[in-house]
């Protein structure tokens, strides 16, 4: 690693010791003692500490010259046993746990968990809760894709994108903080509805943030979309076909980049997605450039949905008024014994869910996130399994990287947009 720089630094130095050291270093490198002589290929280990691996992804590469023969993602460095933890938590506490899996779009995790619990309980949340959920999830989708624009730009070498993308994402997170109290890991969408009603003046704040997002997205498009260096780096890189993507269980922008317009929001609508007007963004080349374009344009589609949410936000309750699921308002606890009991029971034992099993899937920014939930009639789940889209999408990197140059693997990993918290859980 440092030998080239050391050589330059040491050149012309008179210190005898340093020069001997330099010669020795060069000897070791040039005799090639690290690799077996009969092998033409090189194994390179990339990560888990590498700036382009989004945290703790490790990638093993087999190279012939500069060409990648094989790529193998090695994961597990962020495994914290969240599915095991979920078995120890009540359904009330469960959302706090799942929200930390995909930390770039926590609200999608909470939503899929809440929908699964609600399906087992067989309850339906009020319309206002549905629309608040939809608005927050779409804002979160925009934030997640803005983060992608930042990190993708940085990985490819467009370093100013790191600042721009982060700037607009921060605005979106600030808006989410106004709604939920937290920038990330919101724990706002809970079984039975959402945690709180919308704050005063939310329309104006949201509209001004949406304007900023749109302005920012236009800027990115201007900086990147037609940029010849950007296109040179991404067009035709990491190509994957529809058949490959489907066989590898890929979903989200990766599947849509192959010309297959599959979006669960349209195909199997949940919440109120069948009542709002938006388009499924898809392209047909299946390369890294297309995946960039899809995410960029999905930000605008999310903005479109949020605008409709602001216009059509129904009045009413933001959570179901079933005391078995929803805690009573604070004021009621002072005057009602029943309310106090409900409050106490709910926060100590949680509520019981009838025996059964269900799988609920929604479209997260990264693809299909699913929650497989098994209950045995007690207050804690027997099994909570999250089908993380990144976990499956990561498998496509092997197919994408085969035969490309080693420099393109960074672009490929980046274009998959894996969130390792969700991969390892």
């Amino acid at each position, binding site marked *: 690693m440092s030998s080239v720089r050391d050589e330059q630094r040491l050149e012309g130095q008179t210190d005898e010791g340093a020069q001997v050291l330099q010669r020795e270093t060069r000897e070791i490198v040039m005799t090639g003692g690290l690799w077996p002589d009969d092998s033409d290929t090189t194994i390179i280990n990339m990560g888990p500490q590498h700036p382009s691996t989004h945290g703790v992804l490790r990638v093993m590469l087999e190279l012939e010259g500069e060409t990648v023969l094989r790529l193998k993602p090695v994961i597990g460095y962020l495994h914290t046993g969240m599915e095991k933890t979920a078995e120890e938590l009540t359904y009330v506490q469960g959302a706090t746990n799942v929200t930390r899996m995909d930390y770039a779009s926590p609200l999608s995790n909470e939503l899929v968990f809440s929908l699964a619990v609600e399906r087992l309980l067989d309850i339906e949340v009020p319309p206002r809760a549905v629309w608040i959920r939809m608005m927050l999830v779409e804002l979160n989708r925009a934030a997640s894709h803005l983060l992608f624009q930042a990190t993708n730009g940085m990985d490819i070498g467009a370093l100013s994108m790191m600042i721009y993308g982060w700037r607009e994402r921060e605005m979106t997170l600030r808006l989410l903080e106004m709604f939920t109290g937290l920038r990330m890991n919101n724990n706002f969408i809970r079984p039975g509805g959402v945690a709180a009603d919308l704050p005063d003046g939310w329309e104006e704040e949201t509209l001004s943030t949406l304007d900023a997002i749109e302005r920012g997205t236009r800027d990115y498009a201007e900086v990147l979309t037609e940029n010849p260096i950007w296109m040179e780096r991404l067009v035709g890189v990491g190509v994957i076909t529809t058949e490959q993507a489907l066989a590898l269980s890929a979903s989200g922008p990766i599947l849509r980049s192959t010309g297959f317009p599959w979006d669960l929001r349209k195909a199997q609508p949940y919440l109120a997605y069948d009542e709002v007007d938006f388009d499924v963004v898809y392209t047909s080349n299946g390369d890294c450039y297309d995946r960039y374009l899809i995410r960029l344009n999905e930000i605008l589609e999310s903005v479109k949905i949020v605008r409709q949410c602001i216009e059509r936000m129904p009045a009413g309750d933001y959570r179901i008024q079933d005391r078995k699921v929803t805690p009573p308002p604070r004021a009621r606890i002072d005057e009602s014994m029943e309310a106090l009991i409900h409050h106490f029971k709910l926060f100590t034992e949680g509520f019981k869910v009838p025996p059964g099993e269900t799988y609920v899937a929604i479209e997260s920014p990264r693809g299909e996130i699913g929650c497989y939930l*098994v209950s*045995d009639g007690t207050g804690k789940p027997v099994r909570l399994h999250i089908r993380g889209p990144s*976990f499956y999408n990561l498998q496509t990197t092997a197919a994408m990287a085969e035969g490309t140059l080693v420099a393109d693997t960074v672009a490929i990993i980046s274009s998959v947009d894996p969130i390792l918290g969700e991969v390892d859980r």
Partner: protein
Amino acid sequence: MPDADDAREGIHEPGRAEGASDAAMSELAAAVVAKFPGAVFHESHGQPVVYVDRASWHDVAVHLRDVEQCTSCLDVTVVDHLSDAGRLVVDGVAPERFEVVANYLSHARNRRLRVICEVPEHEPAISSLSDVYPGTNFAEREAYDLFGITFEGHSDLTRILMPDDWVGHPLRKDDHPSRVPVTFKEDPTPR
């Protein structure tokens, strides 16, 4: 952006999962039950589920892919029913400790199907689906890692989330977290 391709747009036409009738929802399940004699149909909160035996686990996957247009196997996971207080009992299915669960999706028909197989404790093994659906490769490695279910025919059945030298399978109900002692560097006595 390329122009909208009407033929591709049409993919979304056939299917509103919520609005479809019950018969349409369970048509995949009905096909599996008709083809494989031991299969048991069960409706779980509006979702079609089929319980199959271990012998037909792999054949069901092939049938779903080749005949029923199930384009993706989205997820393979395991449930350990060792210590359930009250377990969901389905008529005609002999409960075992482990349940291996596969979630199929047919993009073309916009239908989902969940296939469940009971796996006994004394022989925790089942045939791998990774030759039919390559996407299940990671999922089966995860199931092996966390539950100790052997997927026969899997090309690379190694640990994926836990360290390679880990002993035990952490998501099993009898593998308790406190089994692993916590030691502190400066502390002379182990805890």
